[in-house]
């Protein structure tokens, strides 16, 4: 029978291998975007940011949704592994959200002429980021593990509920943010050479998420196991 500590070490080991594969894939996306994808006629080279920005948005939203689902399961089942997973997923989501919130303005400056506008999609993406920052501020402020997990779960569930809303902001409000060009009801309006790089990037961000979250879960699970063995 494996102990909780051995389990955590296994998660870390596997997670690091998957993360390494993801990072190699990320380098591959860079190569594809710059070497094997044509330059867009109207936006020029700035359009290449598109191969990073929407996949980062997708990965961060996926991470926040999983953090919310795990938090909901924690509240229902009171199994601390769900809390450990929620914390891991929220942290990885924040890293990807940082990619989203930095690459977006760098694209907006040459295309819109402004780094930032208080547009619905942009504003709610920033609120989502700040909400998960507050999730970690809250976690570090509460000492009792059960109380900490319960309070944090409520914040993560609120963050999860914001995700579908962020997705439909471009339909609900009169925004400057572009409408979806790939994930929509009719066919993607992208030539195959661009679509190929775009979809590869989505796959790579998924692999990076899996690798990062597994490693981070292992780190959290190891800390819990060590605390329990210290207490025992």
């Amino acid at each position, binding site marked *: 029978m494996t102990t909780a500590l051995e389990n955590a070490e296994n998660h870390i080991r596997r997670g690091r291998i998957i993360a390494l594969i993801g990072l190699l894939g990320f380098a591959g996306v860079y190569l594809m975007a710059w070497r094997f994808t044509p330059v867009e006629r109207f936006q020029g080279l700035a359009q290449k940011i598109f191969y990073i920005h929407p996949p980062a948005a997708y990965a961060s939203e996926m991470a926040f949704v999983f953090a919310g689902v795990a938090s909901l399961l924690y509240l229902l089942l009171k199994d601390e592994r769900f809390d450990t997973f929620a914390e891991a997923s929220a942290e990885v989501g924040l890293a990807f959200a940082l990619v989203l919130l*930095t*690459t977006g303005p*760098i694209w907006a400056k040459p295309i819109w002429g402004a780094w930032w506008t208080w547009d619905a999609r942009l504003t709610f993406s920033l609120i989502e980021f700040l909400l998960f920052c507050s999730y970690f501020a809250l976690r570090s402020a509460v000492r009792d593990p059960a109380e900490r997990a319960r309070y944090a779960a409520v914040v993560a569930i609120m963050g999860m509920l914001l995700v579908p809303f962020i997705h439909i902001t471009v339909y609900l409000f009169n925004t400057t943010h572009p409408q979806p060009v790939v994930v929509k009801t009719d066919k993607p309006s992208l030539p195959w050479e661009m679509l190929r790089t775009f979809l590869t990037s989505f796959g790579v961000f998924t692999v990076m998420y899996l690798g990062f979250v597994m490693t981070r879960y292992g780190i959290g699970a190891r800390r819990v196991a060590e605390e329990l063995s210290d207490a025992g």
Partner: protein
Amino acid sequence: MPDNGSYAIAAYIVAATIVIGYAISLVRRSKR
């Protein structure tokens, strides 16, 4: 075609810095 390649390069460098930086932080924390 607009000349905005420096923005694209900056965005790619920023994205790589965040992703690799986070990966390094995970590796450091995962070591005993």
